[in-house]
């Protein structure tokens, strides 16, 4: 038993599990302190997500953007860059998607592909700027990318607020063309006779037709696999990881560390921006004046941390996070407990992950005692 505990403590996976457990515990305590029944809260949380397939599909749909930002953050971390700016890069992707989706008419299929490539490049360049500032001037990427986040946020509001962009009488940009949308079925399809006939025939399709499920899910999976392969099996991935492990050793081994920092941030920022563009193309269809950032990039940081910065892990972490958020709205609407309970849970969880390096040392201490 003791040996098992010692071995378990050395595994990163244990740390994440403990962190998730403590996160839930803190959530329960907070609910109880607020005078709410934690048992009821958590059962609402679970039933709110699992009660029907449509909700489960919704979890997946909502997870796509935060998995993308999670991938972005974790890819950068693996290569030694703490990309806290995924939020800004995501926003740049949203802007690119909304603008190209309306102002550049194109045939179907090509249109979304074109938008995705452009968004990737825009977000990639935006993120590389932080890497450039680090390479050239030694400015830590945490500070610079926070500032870039705010600039991106105000830039989006600026674009939406332009006379030529804003739809009169609204607070948002014009809706993108149907050619640029990437859901499996259009929203109108649900109400057509054809759609109703299809649903009557295949009731299981409802979760696909009635949510914004679309090709974004497939793209997300493809990107995940691609990033995983790049990191694990390519020379460039090896070099990038080497810089992440030991910057000076990599530099000594004549690896182009500065160029790699740029490249890593380009891929990371591009991934985040791709998430933003896909959100516009599959769910929002336009960008809106915002009073505060929606925080997809910040969610991505938590996702990456929970996933232990592993690309495949990001999918599971993103699904967990997305389920928590959807369940959190259920807690608020049915129990009146503030949805911020989820943020508190996530905060506690992340704090535990910051604590994680202490666990192997704890294991060693136990071992020595033996």
């Amino acid at each position, binding site marked *: 038993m003791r040996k098992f505990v010692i071995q378990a403590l050395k595994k990163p996976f244990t740390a994440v599990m403990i962190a998730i457990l403590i996160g839930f515990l803190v959530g329960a305590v907070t609910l109880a302190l607020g005078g709410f029944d934690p048992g009821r809260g958590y059962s609402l949380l679970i039933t709110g997500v699992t009660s029907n397939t449509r909700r489960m599909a919704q979890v997946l749909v909502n997870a796509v953007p935060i998995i993308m930002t999670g991938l972005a953050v974790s890819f950068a971390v693996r290569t030694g860059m703490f990309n806290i700016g995924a939020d800004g890069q995501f926003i740049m992707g949203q802007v690119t998607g909304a603008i190209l989706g309306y102002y550049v008419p194109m045939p179907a299929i090509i249109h979304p592909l074109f938008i995705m490539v452009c968004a990737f490049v825009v977000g990639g360049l935006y993120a590389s700027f932080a890497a450039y500032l680090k390479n050239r001037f030694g400015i830590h990427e*945490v500070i610079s990318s926070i*500032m870039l986040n705010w600039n991106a946020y105000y830039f989006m509001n600026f674009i939406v607020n332009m006379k030529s962009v804003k739809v009169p009488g609204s607070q948002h940009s014009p809706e993108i063309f149907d050619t640029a949308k990437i859901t499996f079925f259009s929203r109108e399809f649900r109400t057509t006779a054809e759609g109703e006939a299809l649903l009557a025939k295949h009731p299981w399709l409802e979760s696909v037709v009635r949510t914004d499920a679309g090709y974004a899910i497939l793209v997300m999976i493809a990107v995940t696999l691609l990033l995983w392969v790049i990191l694990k099996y390519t020379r460039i991935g090896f070099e990038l990881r080497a810089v992440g492990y030991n910057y000076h050793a990599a530099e000594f081994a004549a690896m182009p560390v500065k160029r790699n920092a740029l490249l890593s941030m380009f891929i990371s920022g591009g991934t985040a921006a791709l998430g933003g563009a896909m959100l516009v193309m599959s769910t929002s269809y336009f960008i809106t004046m915002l009073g*505060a950032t929606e925080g997809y990039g910040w969610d991505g940081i938590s996702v990456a941390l929970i996933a232990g910065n592993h690309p495949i892990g990001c999918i599971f972490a993103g699904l967990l996070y997305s389920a928590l958020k959807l369940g959190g709205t259920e807690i608020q609407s049915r129990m009146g407990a503030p949805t*911020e309970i989820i943020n*508190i849970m996530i905060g506690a969880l992340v*704090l535990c992950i910051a604590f994680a390096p202490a666990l192997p040392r704890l294991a060693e201490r136990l071992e020595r005692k033996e």
Partner: protein
Amino acid sequence: MNLLNTVLLTVSISLMYSAPLIFTALGGVITQRAGVDNIGLEGMMAFGACGASILCHFTGSPWIGLVVGALFGATLAILHAFISVTAKGNQLISGIAINFIGLGVGVFLTRFLFNGAAQSNSTINEPLPKLLGLLGIDKSKSRLLESSEIDLTVIFAFAFAVLIWFVLYKTRIGLRVRACGEHPGAADTLGVNVTRIRYVATILSGVMAGLGGAVTSLTISYRFTPTVISGQGFIALAAVIFGNWKPIGATLACLLFGFAQALTVVLAGIPWLPTQILAMLPYALTLLILVIFVERSTPPKALGQPYFKGQA
């Protein structure tokens, strides 16, 4: 007369926006000079702003709000100190978590106490005293005097800057703090309790950031909202770097950033200048200034590294 009025107004608004930054940046200087990185200042500010506005609302006293804001900040800092010093964990991740928790608990509390509204009701029954008012000067006669009115907290901020400069550079304690940030091993060998010093420094940074947040909600926004702290914690961190990790330097940097924020208010009436572009100014300026100055500043050697007893 009109120009003079604008200048005075710009100065007083700059000072108003600088004060929270100065408090927070001084906190950043203390903790970083002791070797503990703290990117959770943002969350500590938010939590302090929340505590201050809630207590001010219910007790009617902004002074109690100020003290409670500081305590709220300190509470989060204890968590950060535990992770960073005792557990020797990842200080950046801990800071991120603090940012989540500070804002999350803050909004949760506010929703809980104000019937689901994410912002507290207008809190100020009796605002913090202002300088001219306190000196007994009747400013109702002159617009100029009215424009140059500043909050007492601005004076506090400067007083703290001088005090912390004095403690860091002219006292034995200050020397020990700086030693912990440069070479904790050497400090330990000479009998300095690195753990204790780092704990105290980190908690003090929470107190200062909490004060900064409290000042924001008590003198600028007059209430707590989820967006009342929008990057100020990180701007304060940039000020620490720009100020070369020195209290007076960081204070001057904050004055500049406060000026940038004031410009967004003063220039707001200009028709060809969109407000969103104007709003970018503090953030863009922060970047620009870092580009120009960062190479001339040297961080504490042991910044961000946990200290293991016995390490060289």
